[in-house]
């Protein structure tokens, strides 16, 4: 039997930097660090030299200067004398507006199409897959331009609504579809209208309270309260009663033809409609696929087990399938919302004044501050993306299957 001795402690040799796993990762990281630093130093020195050669400097003072251009669709007060910063705010709000509108309609469209794709009806099933395939496989920019074309080329001009025997007429005498945009009635808030609005908000809260009470009652005593009709009644009856009692404080400002154009009401411009609608149908097709995949991901045994417990089909859907399907559907759904927000930057193609068109388009061209504008633009989108992914991470960790 030979005595075991400790192996001789090796002294450090240079080749160990590559061959020894203890040091190799350090070597690689050092190389990577040097490469990255030298890349940034190279780019930075080029930037400094180029700026010096062009006599420019990095400064954000242009944000305070008057912008000098008009924006046709604004949510906040804005004139051509407002600052570039104000123009950027208009753009940010417009981006958020079209993104929120797009998310809502895309979800509605996508859920309907996704559920119908699983319908037992052969024709409807095929029709929905045609919808999904057509809209998924054609670039969204082309859809935006096509729908913008429908809005501006095919719809009648306001003058078509004029005269004793007009060629076009308003829908329900409330909505006017023209090639300049769609005119919709605007609400007029009279005295006392706030009471009606407050009542309506209170009834919404009351509906939720009633439903949770009904659920609690069901779980504790087994008594089943009806929820459908009472909810509707709680939601509508008090508001309508108060509205009539107070003498109809909320009126409608209906758009009407004044001269060559419509006046009154709210004008929703053609670019906004085109962008909103195109983003909705395009993203709706993707959401439809997510919804379908989510529902298919719930195994058939779940449905059968629920049926064996004696649940009715609607309750199977509400209590067994949907909660499990939502776990699969929501993460890709949120990333589709993110896509809508990012794709809304295509607004520049149809002249909708979103942040890309104001800050990254006109302001950039007028001031020549390319680096600053593009940097601010990227930071804005980055902030939105990161905050959405934070929300998604919180959701994911909350919804994670509670396993042993």
């Amino acid at each position, binding site marked *: 039997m030979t005595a075991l001795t400790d192996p001789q402690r090796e002294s450090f040799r240079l080749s160990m930097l*590559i061959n020894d796993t203890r040091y190799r990762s350090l070597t*690689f*990281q050092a190389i990577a660090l040097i490469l990255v630093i030298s890349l940034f130093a190279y780019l930075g020195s080029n930037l400094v030299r*180029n700026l010096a050669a062009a006599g420019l400097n990095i400064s954000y003072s242009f944000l305070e200067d008057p912008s000098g251009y008009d924006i046709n669709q604004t949510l906040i007060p804005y004139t051509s004398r407002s600052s570039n910063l104000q123009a950027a705010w208009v753009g940010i709000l417009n981006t958020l507006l079209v993104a929120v509108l797009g998310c809502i309609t895309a979800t509605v469209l996508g859920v309907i199409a996704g559920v119908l794709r699983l319908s037992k*009806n052969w*024709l*409807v099933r095929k029709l929905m897959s045609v919808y999904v395939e*057509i809209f998924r496989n054609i670039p969204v920019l082309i859809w935006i*331009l096509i729908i913008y074309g429908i809005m501006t080329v095919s719809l009648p001009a306001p003058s078509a609504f004029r005269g004793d025997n007009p060629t076009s007429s308003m829908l329900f005498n409330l909505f006017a579809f023209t090639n300049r945009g769609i005119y919709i009635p605007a609400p007029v808030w009279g005295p006392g209208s706030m009471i009606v609005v407050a009542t309506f908000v209170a009834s919404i809260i009351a509906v939720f309270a009633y439903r949770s009470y009904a659920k609690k009652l069901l779980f504790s005593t087994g008594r089943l309260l009806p929820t459908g009709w009472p909810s509707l009644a709680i939601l509508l009856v008090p508001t309508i009663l108060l509205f009539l009692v107070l003498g109809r404080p909320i009126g409608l400002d209906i758009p009407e033809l004044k001269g060559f154009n419509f006046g009154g009401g709210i004008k929703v411009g053609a670019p906004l409609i085109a962008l909103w609608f195109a983003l909705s149908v395009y993203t709706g097709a993707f959401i439809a696929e997510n919804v379908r995949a989510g529902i298919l991901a719930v195994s058939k045994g779940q449905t059968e087990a629920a049926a064996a417990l004696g649940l009715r089909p609607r309750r199977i859907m509400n209590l067994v399938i949907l909660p499990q399907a939502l776990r699969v559907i929501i993460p890709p759904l949120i990333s589709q919302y993110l896509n809508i927000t*990012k794709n809304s930057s295509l607004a520049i193609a149809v002249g909708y004044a979103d942040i890309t068109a104001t800050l990254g388009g006109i302001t950039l061209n007028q001031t020549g501050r390319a680096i600053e504008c593009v940097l601010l633009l990227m930071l804005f989108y980055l902030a939105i993306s990161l905050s959405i992914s934070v929300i998604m991470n919180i959701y994911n960790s909350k919804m994670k299957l509670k396993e042993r």
Partner: protein
Amino acid sequence: MSDTHAESVAYVRETAIPPAPAPVTEAGVVGWLRQNLFATWANAALTIAALYAIYLVLAATLPWVLGGVWTTDSLTECREVLQGRSAACFSVLTERWNQLIFGFKYPDEFYWRPSLAFVLLFLAAAPVLFFDLPRKLLLFTAVYPFLAYWLIWGGTIWAPVFAALGLVAGYVIFDRFGNQNFATGFLGGIAAALVVWILADYIVPLIASDDPLLPAVQSRDMGGFMLNMILGVVCVSLSLPFGIALALGRQSNMPLIRWISVVFIEFIRGVPLITLLFVANVVLAYFLPPGTSFDLILRVIIMITMFASAYIAEVIRGGLAALPKGQYEAADSLGLDYAQSMRLIILPQALKISIPGIVNVSVGLFKDTTLVSIITMFDLVGMIRGPILASSDWNGVYWELFGFASVLFFITCYGISQYSQWLERRLTTDHR
């Protein structure tokens, strides 16, 4: 046994009744219709609504498409032929075909060059897409990028030849030393390629003839659907290796490498492509050495490749994460080092899982190449919005042009996604 029940029952059948045919309402066409279209009242209503919707769409488009005019030279002429009928003026497609496909500045007499490159693309892609083809065809795939560059851009043949030689030198070095030590082979290969390219930088101007076989075409003359194809094919193929590297970097246990990858990926994924194109258009020039002028097309390719790599990296990371941990441990226990285990065990499986995702990203990227029209490059959409719709001949032909663009993109993208589904079925190894 037949008389068992003789006392208690009057009659007992001793042979089976022949099976009766299913009722008419349950079999054949009628049965299918009842089951699939008219199962319930609600279902029947849905069917009728769907039929009505189909009728509305077809009634609006079919006469317009079928009555289309194909042979006039301008919109006014087309309107005269139509005499007030509402029908399509497809003659814009026949008259402007070359502009739609090649852009408006590519020299007419060279149209055969990109066309040939396009046909050869299928030959080059075939062995990559279909594994049953002889492996020797891959040699042509390797040559193809240089051949296609030479065909489309023209100019001296020595530039692509030396570019290829550099890669060959790098590969030879890697093949020689990579077996002993991956890092040595890898770095040595890169160094060898760089040496050849730097040498070529001096040699090529000397030996290039003034009158090359294929006259050079400027990058800014590229346009039309050709530009979409160039951007799509180049950026997807370039972004695959970068995407794999980024995905491995994000999974790496070296913190610095991981952080670089994470920051790059999240930054690129957080901003819209259009802002990156703005960078390519107006900002990138500030970060390059003074006096150098990059082609806009090259700058755009760089930015789109970065964009696509980040997305592909996320898809591949999903594939890596989906592999059971046992695969990594098995590779380790066989004594394979990192490069070997990745190349032989992990990546083949991870890439297979990621194929649908990679194809989705590629299709999305190909669709996104239309965005270059916003930074005034004349791709298919740019051609339609710019030179064609603005021309006095065809001002106002809206639907025919965008319909054509949609059909072109639909065919390409639908084709790719059908291929990916075929591949997925082909590659499934589980027995289900």
